[in-house]
């Protein structure tokens, strides 16, 4: 199967990437080649094989609930693109209408 320009535009929307019209064709061609190559995993007979999600077995990890000094608001905000009244200032999150 091949990846269409429209599918790339959809993936870009899901990925929150405002990519330009000119980039769509280039990414479509490249993603098509890459997806065709990685689809080779489907050749492997893997019925009944459990998936591995992590390189080494992961179990719940517990530690003592020790109080340590927090980062502090000033340090947390020091690299913010915009801050106001000791908080992160963000663009509007609701539609205008």
């Amino acid at each position: 199967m091949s990846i269409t320009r429209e599918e790339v535009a959809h993936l870009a929307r899901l990925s929150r990437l405002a990519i330009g019209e000119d980039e769509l064709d280039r990414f479509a061609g490249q993603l098509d080649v890459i997806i065709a190559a990685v689809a080779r995993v489907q050749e492997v007979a893997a019925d009944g094989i459990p998936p591995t999600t992590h390189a080494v077995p992961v179990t719940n990890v517990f530690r003592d609930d020790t109080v340590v000094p927090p980062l502090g608001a000033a340090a947390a905000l020091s690299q913010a693109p915009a801050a106001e009244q000791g908080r992160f200032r963000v663009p509007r999150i609701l539609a205008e209408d």
Partner: protein
Amino acid sequence: MSGELTRLTAAGIAASVAAGEVSAVEVTRAHLDRIAAVDDCVHAFLHVAADGALRAARAVDDRRAAGEPLGPLAGVPLALKDVFTTADMPTTCGSRMLAGWQPPYDATITRRLRRAGIVLLGKTNMDEFAMGSSTETSAFGPSRNPWDLSRVPGGSSGGSAAAVAAFEAPLAIGTDTGGSIRQPGAVCGIVGVKPTYGGSSRYGLVAFASSLDTPGPLARTVLDAALLHEAMSGHDPCDSTSVDAPVPPVVAAARHADVSGLRIGVVTELNGEGYQPGVIARFTEAVELLESLGAKIAEISCPHFGYALPAYYLIAPSECSSNLARFDAMRYGLRVGDDGTRSAEEVMSLTRAAGFGAEVKRRIMLGTYALSSGYYDAYYGKAQQVRTLITRDFDTAFEQVDVLVSPATPTTAFPIGERADDPMAMYLADLCTIPSNLAGNAAISVPCGLAPDDRLPVGLQIMAPVLADDRMYRVSAAVEAALDQRRGHPLLDEANGLGEARPDGARPGEARPGEAGPGKAGPGEARAGGEAGR
């Protein structure tokens, strides 16, 4: 004299500092001078912290003067990949998204290095968010290979590898997600180590693919790599995937360069078509060398290794698409288009389009595709099953042999620009290294000579079982000692990208009369500088 200090090993520097033969400040100055002299050509560093480095060196000298005990690497300079947070230096990950970002805290590894008295010279260039095999995806321009400045130093930890190979630092730290330490180590002619997953902390490492990311050392000798391995490793309660077990005895193993009786398996699948003849020639010789040193060689088939690359390029992009969602333009990093009319979502999308380069965008979209409902089972789910089969291949192999060997890379360093517009060609650089990332076991690349067809370095990869990191150090040290003895000088003496080859094999520390010091630009260097044109 100061030029020769940069030729010393880390172990040699630490011993000289501890003995009071040289001060840590002198050592640090020599490396800062070296960086000033050659980094315009090499471009290994994104940030050089001269003042901070000299302060840290002075602290080591003060501790020595006060009679305090010093650690085994105290006073040794190090180049840190720009993916670890540093409270006193910017951390950019080679991305416009984080240009100028000043983290409010140190990564665990950063903190451990400082505590060991290791002197942080600065932060090294890398492929953007560690996605790439050449440093060409860095938003700040590529680094260059000290063997040939027209070629890539590998990646993603290419700046770290180039810094060590160019004698700008005796030690560096990189991260290896699909080969990003071993591949640049191999093509720059130095030692690169991917420890067992979880053996080195990820806390404060900006995440690319969390189930694969592994910090590790780069050095010019196997012993130096082992010393750094021990200094940086160990359980970290801040990283929930950190292994709560003793660090394998890698320094003792590096000093025990003996392979007699060791069973070594040559992986059938990591050879043949697609491999450069000069790489295979040197690899085959290295295997013969190991046999002559008393190792028992067997050929071992790992039938699913051929599917490691496609599985990796589904798993890593899937994890990346999730991890990089944090770059949302709200709390740190770049924000564009916030003009009061646009919504948060519009600002987010514009920022991510402006802040990420093409490779990062490709991988985010590829991961988003692989995780989409309707495709999940056929792509991501299948890749995870292949991951299980690759781990089983390793398990079966390690029932028959103690370690596995292969070339570290299919080819030597390729020319800058050659693969930049062909993602699949670039991905093939990680062909041999990926299986150990998927299975989480330890693996190393150690130099095994120059390819006869292009006179560029070739790496021998040695793979050991999970938490048996010491075994690969033992094999590497034996290969290194035998090849150095046969050659009569370290391989890096032959590097001539900066016009400084020492063809008659002068040993470090023995300055020859009339020799142009490394600080002075030789003719080759001047020409290369003209070509660099960043």
